[in-house]
């Protein structure tokens, strides 16, 4: 658990970078800090592992004040991933990934097993990469190693500073999805900095939207999209926030909330898997690929059909509910 308690950061005696920040990241939660550049999100992240000092207030990491912890020991218990992966060109991939276990004095066998396991986890073949060097890997592969390195000593908490920001969109989407899978399995407590609202909506359990060192809203993605706390939030999440929020719901959510229409065979219908997001569903309809979509589960059993007005009805309901 990471608990921010009245955290304030003042530069040069008068420039307030962070003002009275109060919020909590619960165990196993992935919280994304979002905001325009200069809003203080990276500063706030770096205050957790004390790469930035805290002027006033405190951050409690699993009940312990970071201001009064031993910095070196604490940092070894926090996974840290940065945008430009920061791999060391003088070390091969195994040494890079195992740098923290090495500092902690793990034995060779344990480190090797851990390396193999982590590389499998991030989708790289351990034996193929073990002896290679960072410059021989693509940006995406390097960032995978960066994630493996941060996970090496199995820290309960991870700090990630725009980890996928420097990658091209296709690789980024891939890594986001893979990382979500990993997170589902490992349930780390993660504080994550991003400037990309789509990334935040897709990945976060909660979003912290910052501006000028102040918290604008701290809420679940759906709530932030459907019920922005003020005009800044509304503007930041975008005019198309309703569309964005639809990527948070699957066709099954709709099927569970409302009664589906009966299936009517027509040339203008298409099948859709119930695990797909509503965003996919609506774009199919708007794209005039079909007037109605027939909902199927994984076994191919038809559950009913959805149309544009049914989606509309669902959205009204959701927006009202989250008020």
């Amino acid at each position: 658990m990471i608990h921010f308690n009245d955290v304030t950061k003042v530069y040069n005696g008068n420039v307030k970078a962070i003002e009275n920040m109060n919020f909590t990241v619960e165990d196993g939660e992935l919280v994304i800090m979002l905001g325009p550049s200069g809003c203080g999100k990276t500063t706030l992240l770096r205050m957790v592992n004390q790469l930035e000092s805290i002027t006033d207030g405190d951050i409690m990491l699993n009940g312990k004040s970071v201001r009064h912890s031993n910095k070196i020991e604490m940092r070894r218990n926090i996974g840290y991933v940065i945008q430009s992966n920061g791999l060391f060109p003088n070390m091969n991939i195994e040494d890079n990934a195992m740098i923290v276990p090495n500092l902690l004095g793990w034995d060779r066998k344990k480190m090797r097993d851990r390396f193999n396991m982590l590389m499998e986890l991030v989708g790289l073949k351990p034996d193929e990469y073990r002896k290679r060097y960072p410059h021989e890997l693509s940006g995406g592969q390097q960032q995978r190693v960066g994630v493996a390195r941060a996970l090496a000593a199995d820290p309960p908490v991870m700090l990630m500073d725009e980890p996928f920001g420097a990658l091209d969109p296709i690789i980024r989407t891939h890594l986001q999805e893979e990382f979500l899978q990993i997170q589902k399995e490992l349930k780390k407590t993660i504080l994550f900095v991003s400037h990309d609202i789509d990334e935040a909506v897709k990945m976060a359990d909660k979003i912290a939207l910052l501006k000028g060192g102040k918290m604008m809203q701290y809420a679940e993605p759906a709530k932030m999209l459907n019920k922005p706390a003020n005009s800044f939030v509304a503007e930041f999440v975008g005019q198309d926030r309703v569309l964005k929020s639809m990527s948070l719901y699957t066709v099954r959510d709709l099927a569970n909330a409302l009664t589906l229409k009966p299936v009517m065979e027509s040339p203008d219908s298409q099948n859709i898997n119930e695990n797909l997001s509503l965003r996919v569903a609506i774009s199919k309809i708007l794209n005039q690929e079909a007037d109605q979509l027939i909902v199927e589960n994984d076994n191919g059993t038809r559950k009913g059909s959805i149309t544009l007005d049914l989606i509309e009805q669902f959205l009204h309901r959701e927006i009202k509910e989250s008020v």
Partner: protein
Amino acid sequence: MDRTNKTIALIIKLIFWALLIAFFVWAFANNMFSKIWEQPDTFLRLLGEHITIVLLSGAAAVLLAVPLGIFVTRPKFRKSEWLIVGIANLGQTIPSLAVLALAMGFLGIGISAAVVALFVYSLLPILQNTIAGLDSVDDNMIDAAKGMGLTNAQILWKIELPNALTSIIAGVRTALVINIGTAALAYLIGAGGLGVWIFTGIRLFDNAFLMSGAVPVTLLAIVIDYLFKWLQFALVPKGLRLARKAQNS
């Protein structure tokens, strides 16, 4: 384009080697290295003095300049950089002959004055290359290392120095090669070295003395240069070497 470049490089190399061989054929035919065969003991003594001056001054310069370079690149002491580099610069701006003369003024005639003078003269290239090498280490890398809980000493030894090593060794190499040439002047303050034969040759218009002194100095410089190239190869971590190669191709 690449192909023509390579051809030109090859032609220049061939011309260079041809000239070199022609020179040695001429030199041997005219008995230019006769002094080396006639007085092998003297030759070895002068060569020994020459090498001693170069190695002692070089080693002392490395031992001072590298730690100094590390010191001024620590954030806390960064402000002292201009002062220390300024002082080292002073040693380099004064003509080498003047440095030797000044050293003789303090330490009198002999090998110690020459060692001190060349030591002062070598500080700057090593210091500057150490600073440049350490500065070129990517800040993100250091940030990542810090964030993972490496101590400052571990960051220096495991990250900064290995990544700066190419540049540091290049500095030492430059300093030593310059030193070998400058040490020929050590004769002027009575410190011996192969300069003894070179200057004798100049005074007597005797090419045999001149060549017997000058050619070994040149060869020594080339040998040291290659030795350090090899050292760079042996000491710089493999990953960095490969990365550099990949970048250049």
